C-alpha cells in the first residue's frame, strides 16, 4: 500500500471518531483508500469537494492530529484472495486474525500484507494446456487444501487470449506467477475489490433447495440455493444459535460466517464448535469448509461496515470456482448502525430512526449479490445469503427489519414468546414466509419426495387451526370444544414439541435428514388421525389425553439423525397403544 503518485498526499484537518476530513489532495477518486498519520490507519474516501475529502477510518483514530499526513494508495478497498482462506479467521478488512497479536492495536494496519500468508508455500497442479485459448473463469490449475474443497485457480475477469505459459507442478507462494495469458501475468492469489460484485454469465431461475438439517426450515420455510433469507429476532430468541446450526449442517460446499458487531465469545464458540465437528458428507472437519470473518462489537466500527461486503466477496470468489456457498451475516443491524453512525457524523439528513436515506438501497446491494448462476467458467454455482436482524426492542416495524423483508425469498421470524417457553428454534409459523415453497415442492416431487408439498400444507393448516382453537379455548374453556377440535389442539402440541422443536445440543436431533423429518411429520399425522377415529368411535377425549404421548415427543431425540425407519416403527407402536383405548 505504498503511495503510487507523488503530490497526491494531503493532510488531516478534522477528526471526529471515524470521520476524518483531509485537504490538499488531488485526483482522488471515490472509495479510494488512504492511509492516515504515522500509524497509517486505513480510511476510505466517501466524499470529495475540490481538494478536500471526507474519509471513513477503519481503525481507532485516537492520537490522530490535525496536520497529520494523508497518503493516497491509488487503490480501492480490496483484499488478497487465494488458497489458505478456509479454516481461517479474518477481520472485516480481510486481514488474518489467526496470526495477529492478542490485542488489536492500530499498529496492525501497518502490515496489510501478512508475512505469514505471503511466505506460505502451496502445491500448484496445472490443468490448462499451454498454447490453448483461455478466457475469464477457466481453470488454470488446482491447489489442494486441508479439506476436500479443491482450490481452483481461475483466469481473472477481463483476461482472455492464448495461454502462453503455465507453471509446472510444484511449490509456489501466493504472489508468485503461475500463468501468462496474452500479456497478463496471473499469480496464485488475486487482489479483489470488495465493493463490486464479481461477474458471472447468467442467473438461474429454477429453485433447488438448500438442506439445512433444521426441520422447521426444511419442512415448512425452505430456502432455495442462491436465494436470500433474513432472520429477525430480539435478543434471547436464539438467533445466533440457529445460524450456527445452519452453518454446521447446511449441505453447501463452503460456508462464510460473518460475525458483524457481535460477541467475541460467540466467535470463539463458532471456531471451537466447527473445529470439533465432522462433516458427515466428506469426513472433513467442518472448519475446513468455513471462512470466518469476525468483526466483533468492540472492534473498530467502520471495519464492521466493510465486513459484510468482504464476506460476500469471499463467497463469490468460491462461487466462481463452481461451489455452492452460504454466507451467514450476524448481524446486519450492527452493519446498519455503522452506516448510521457515520452518516450522522457526516451531517447527513436522517430518514427513519436516524438511519440514512440510502439504507434500503445498501441492504438491496447486499442481498442482491445472492444468486444461483452460471459462472464465467460455465459451471453452475450459487451464493446463498442469510442475514440476521436484531430489531431494537424486538420492534418488527423498525427500518432494517422491514426493508430486509423486501429483498429476501424467505423470512424466518423469531418469536420471543416461543423462545421464552424454550421452544427452539423459535421460528414463528405465523410471521415467517418462504416465497419459493411451491417451486421447491415441485423439485422435491421430481427428486424422490412426492409427499413433501402435501405434508407442508397439512403442517401449516394444523398449526393455524390449533392456534385458532387455543385462542377460542382460552375464552370458552377447553372442555367446551367438540372432541375433534380438542384432538386438533393435541395435534398442534405434538407437532410443535415433537417436530418443530429441535435440540441443537443433541447428537441425534441437532441435524435431521429430510427422510427423518418426513417420518416425524407422518408420525404426528398418524396419531392425530387415530385419535380422530377414537373420538368418532365415542372414546372420551379426556382418556385420549391421559394417554402417554412421550414416545411421539421423544422420537426426534431417541433416533439417529437419518433414522427414519425407527420413527416409522415407533408410529406402529403408538397406534397400537391408542387402538387399545376404550
Amino acid at each position: 500500500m505504498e503511495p503510487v503518485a507523488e503530490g497526491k498526499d494531503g493532510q488531516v484537518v478534522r477528526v471526529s471518531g471515524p470521520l476524518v476530513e483531509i485537504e490538499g489532495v488531488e485526483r482522488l477518486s471515490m472509495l479510494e483508500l488512504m492511509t492516515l498519520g504515522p500509524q497509517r490507519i486505513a480510511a476510505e474516501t466517501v466524499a470529495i469537494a475540490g481538494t478536500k475529502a471526507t474519509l471513513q477510518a477503519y481503525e481507532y483514530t485516537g492520537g490522530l492530529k490535525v496536520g497529520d499526513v494523508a497518503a493516497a494508495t491509488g487503490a480501492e478497498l480490496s483484499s488478497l484472495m487465494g488458497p489458505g482462506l478456509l479454516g481461517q479467521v479474518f477481520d472485516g478488512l480481510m486481514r488474518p486474525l489467526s496470526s495477529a497479536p492478542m490485542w488489536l492495536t492500530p499498529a496492525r494496519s501497518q502490515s496489510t500484507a501478512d508475512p505469514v500468508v505471503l511466505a506460505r508455500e502451496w502445491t500448484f497442479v496445472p490443468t490448462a494446456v499451454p498454447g490453448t485459448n483461455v478466457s475469464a473463469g477457466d481453470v488454470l490449475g488446482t491447489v489442494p487444501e486441508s479439506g476436500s474443497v479443491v482450490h481452483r485457480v481461475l483466469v481473472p475477469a477481463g483476461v482472455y487470449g492464448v495461454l502462453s505459459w503455465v507453471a509446472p507442478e510444484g511449490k509456489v507462494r501466493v504472489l508468485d506467477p503461475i500463468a501468462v495469458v496474452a500479456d497478463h501475468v496471473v499469480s496464485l492469489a488475486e487482489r479483489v475489490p470488495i465493493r463490486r460484485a464479481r461477474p458471472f454469465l447468467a442467473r438461474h431461475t429454477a429453485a433447488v433447495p438448500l438442506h439445512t438439517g433444521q426441520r422447521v426450515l426444511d419442512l415448512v420455510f425452505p430456502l432455495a440455493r442462491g436465494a436470500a433469507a433474513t432472520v429477525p429476532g430480539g435478543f434471547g430468541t436464539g438467533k445466533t444459535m440457529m445460524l450456527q446450526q445452519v452453518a454446521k449442517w447446511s449441505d453447501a460446499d463452503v460456508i462464510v460466517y460473518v460475525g458483524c458487531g457481535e460477541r467475541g465469545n460467540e466467535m470463539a464458540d463458532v471456531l471451537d464448535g466447527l473445529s470439533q465437528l465432522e462433516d458427515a458428507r466428506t469426513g472433513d472437519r467442518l472448519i475446513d469448509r468455513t471462512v470466518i470473518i469476525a468483526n466483533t462489537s468492540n472492534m473498530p466500527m467502520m471495519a464492521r461496515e466493510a465486513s459484510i461486503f468482504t464476506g460476500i466477496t469471499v463467497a463469490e470468489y468460491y462461487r466462481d470456482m463452481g461451489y455452492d456457498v452460504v454466507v451467514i451475516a450476524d448481524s446486519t443491524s450492527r452493519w446498519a448502525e455503522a452506516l448510521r453512525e457515520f452518516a450522522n457524523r457526516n451531517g447527513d439528513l436522517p430518514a427513519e430512526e436516524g438511519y440514512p436515506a440510502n439504507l434500503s438501497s445498501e441492504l438491496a446491494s447486499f442481498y442482491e449479490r445472492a444468486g444461483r448462476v452460471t459462472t464465467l467458467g460455465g459451471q453452475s454455482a450459487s451464493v446463498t445469503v442469510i442475514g440476521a436482524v436484531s430489531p431494537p426492542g424486538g420492534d418488527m416495524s423498525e427500518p432494517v427489519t422491514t426493508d430486509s423483508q423486501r429483498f429476501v425469498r424467505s423470512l424466518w421470524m423469531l418469536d420471543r414468546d416461543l423462545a421464552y417457553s424454550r421452544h427452539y428454534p423459535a421460528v414463528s409459523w405465523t410471521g415467517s414466509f418462504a416465497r419459493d415453497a411451491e417451486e421447491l415442492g415441485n423439485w422435491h416431487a421430481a427428486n424422490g419426495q412426492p409427499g413433501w408439498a402435501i405434508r407442508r400444507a397439512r403442517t401449516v393448516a394444523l398449526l393455524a387451526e390449533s392456534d385458532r382453537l387455543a385462542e377460542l379455548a382460552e375464552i370458552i374453556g377447553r372442555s367446551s370444544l367438540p372432541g375433534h377440535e380438542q384432538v386438533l389442539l393435541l395435534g398442534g402440541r405434538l407437532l410443535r414439541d415433537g417436530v418443530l422443536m429441535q435440540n441443537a445440543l443433541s447428537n441425534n436431533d441437532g441435524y435431521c435428514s429430510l427422510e427423518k423429518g418426513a417420518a416425524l411429520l407422518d408420525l404426528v399425522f398418524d396419531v392425530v388421525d387415530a385419535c380422530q377415529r377414537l373420538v368418532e368411535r365415542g372414546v372420551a377425549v379426556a382418556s385420549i389425553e391421559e394417554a402417554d404421548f412421550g414416545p411421539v415427543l421423544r422420537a426426534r431425540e431417541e433416533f439417529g439423525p437419518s433414522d427414519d425407519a425407527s420413527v416409522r416403527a415407533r408410529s406402529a407402536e403408538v397406534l397400537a397403544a391408542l387402538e387399545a383405548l376404550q
Partner: protein
Amino acid sequence: MKDSTGPAKEPIEGTDPAPLSDRFGAQISHGDIREVRGPLLVVGGAGGVGWDEFATIDLAGGESRHGLVLEVDRDLATLQVLESTDGMSLGGIGVRFDGRPLHVQVGTQWLGRVCNGRGEPLDGGPPVTGTATLPVSGWPLNPVYREPPQEPVLTGISVIDGLMTLVRGQKLPIFSVPGLPHLTLATQIAAQATSSGQSFRVVFAAMGLTHADIAFVRDRLEERSAEKELILLLNAADDPVIERILTPRIAPTIAEHLAYTESHDVLVVMSDMTSYAEAVREVSAARREIPARRGYPGYLYSDLATLYERCGRVKGHDGSVTIVPVLTMPAGDITHPVPDLTGYITEGQIVLAPDIAARGIYPPVDVLSSLSRLMRSGAGKGRTREDHPDVAAQVLAALARARQATELAELVGEAALSETDRSYILYRTLVEKGLFDQARDESRTLEDTLGRAWTALAALPDKELTMLPRVFLDRYLPRSGS
C-alpha cells in the same frame, strides 16, 4: 511519510506504548477558550492535539479539572469536561493536553482500595500507583485468542447458580426496576462469588449511586476489602456526571491486568449502567448529534460493547474477567434502549420483577425471562454436577406450566383443577419458598441448591418429569414415605 516514531510495536502488558517524549512534551497551556456549552469546552490554537487525548484544565483558583478530546477541527479542539463546566469563563483557564488518551496505572496495589469514579483515593490513603500504565479504553481482544468460557462462577445464590449459572469470562447483566433490591443482589454476588481452585478478585464500579447505597455497599463488602480481594470505584449520584463515562473503563482496565498478568479470576460489577448511558446521552446532546431512540446516540450499542466485551478468557492465560452490569429499566420497560442494547451484547440476563418481590421472595428473579446463555457449557458433568442442566430445564418447564395452572385456578377455582394441575400449584409454592427465596447474607453450596430443586420437583407426578432421564430420577429424586 518518514515519521520518527517508526513502526509501533505490539504493546505488551507492562510496557508503555507511548514514548515518554509524547507524554510530557506537550504540556503547553492553551488559554484560548472559544466556547463553553454544557459539558463541552472548545479550545482554539490547539493544532497538533490528537483525537481522544486526555487534558488537564487549570482554573483561576488553582483548581484542576479534566477532559477528553471529542473532536479536532483545524485549530479547534472540543473537550468534554469530566467534572462539569460550572464556574468556567472564557478567560483565565489553561488547558494542558496529555499527548495521548487517558492512561491509568495498574497493578495489585489497587486491591483493598476505595476510590472515586476517576480512581482517586477516598480511603485517606496515598494515590494508587502501579506496575504498568495502560490506556483506559483498552484494545479489542483478538477473537482468535478467546477461550470459550466453560467453568462456573458460584455465587452461593440458588436461583442464579441453579438456573442461570454464571460462567468464568461471561457477561451477565441484572435488569431491574427502581425500588427492587438489585444493588443488594449485586453486592451479595460481589461478596460471595468464588471460582473453583482460583484466586478470586472483585472490582466494584458504582455509577450514580446515592450516598446511602454507597454506605451499604462499603459496609457489605468490608470483609472482602479487608482481605485485599476487592477494589471499589465509587461515583455518587451527586458526583460529576461525565466522570461516569470513565468509571466503567477504568474498572476493566484494572481487571484485565489482574486477570491476564496476575492470573486472578476477576469479577467486575458495574452499577448502575443506566446512569452511565445517561451521561453518554448528555454529552451527545451537547454535541447536537442526531439521536437514535429516546434521545440516546446511535453509537450507544458500540459504546456499551466496548465496555462489556472486555470480559473473557484468553488462550495461554489462567485468569478471566467476568462482568455483571446492573441496570434499572425506566418504567420497567425491557425494550428501553439501555436494557435492549445490553441484552444484545451480553450473554443472557437476570431479570428482577416487582410482582415477585411483592410476594416476599428475595432475590425477586423472574426466572422465565432470565437466561444464562453460557450455562450449557459451564454446568453439568465435570463442571458442576451431572444432573444440573436437566434439573434446571425441568424446573423452568414445570414453572411455566405451573404459571398456566395458577392462571386457570384464578378463573375456575382451584377445586375445579385436575390432580396434575394442583400438583403444579403446590410445586410452585415449594420451588419459590424452598429454592428461590434466600436470606441476603446466605451462601448456599451447589449441592444444597440442587437438593432443594429436587425436593420441589418431587411434588410432581413422575410422568410429568419428562426432561429428566430415568437414571437421574433413581439417583436424586427424594422418595417420601407416602
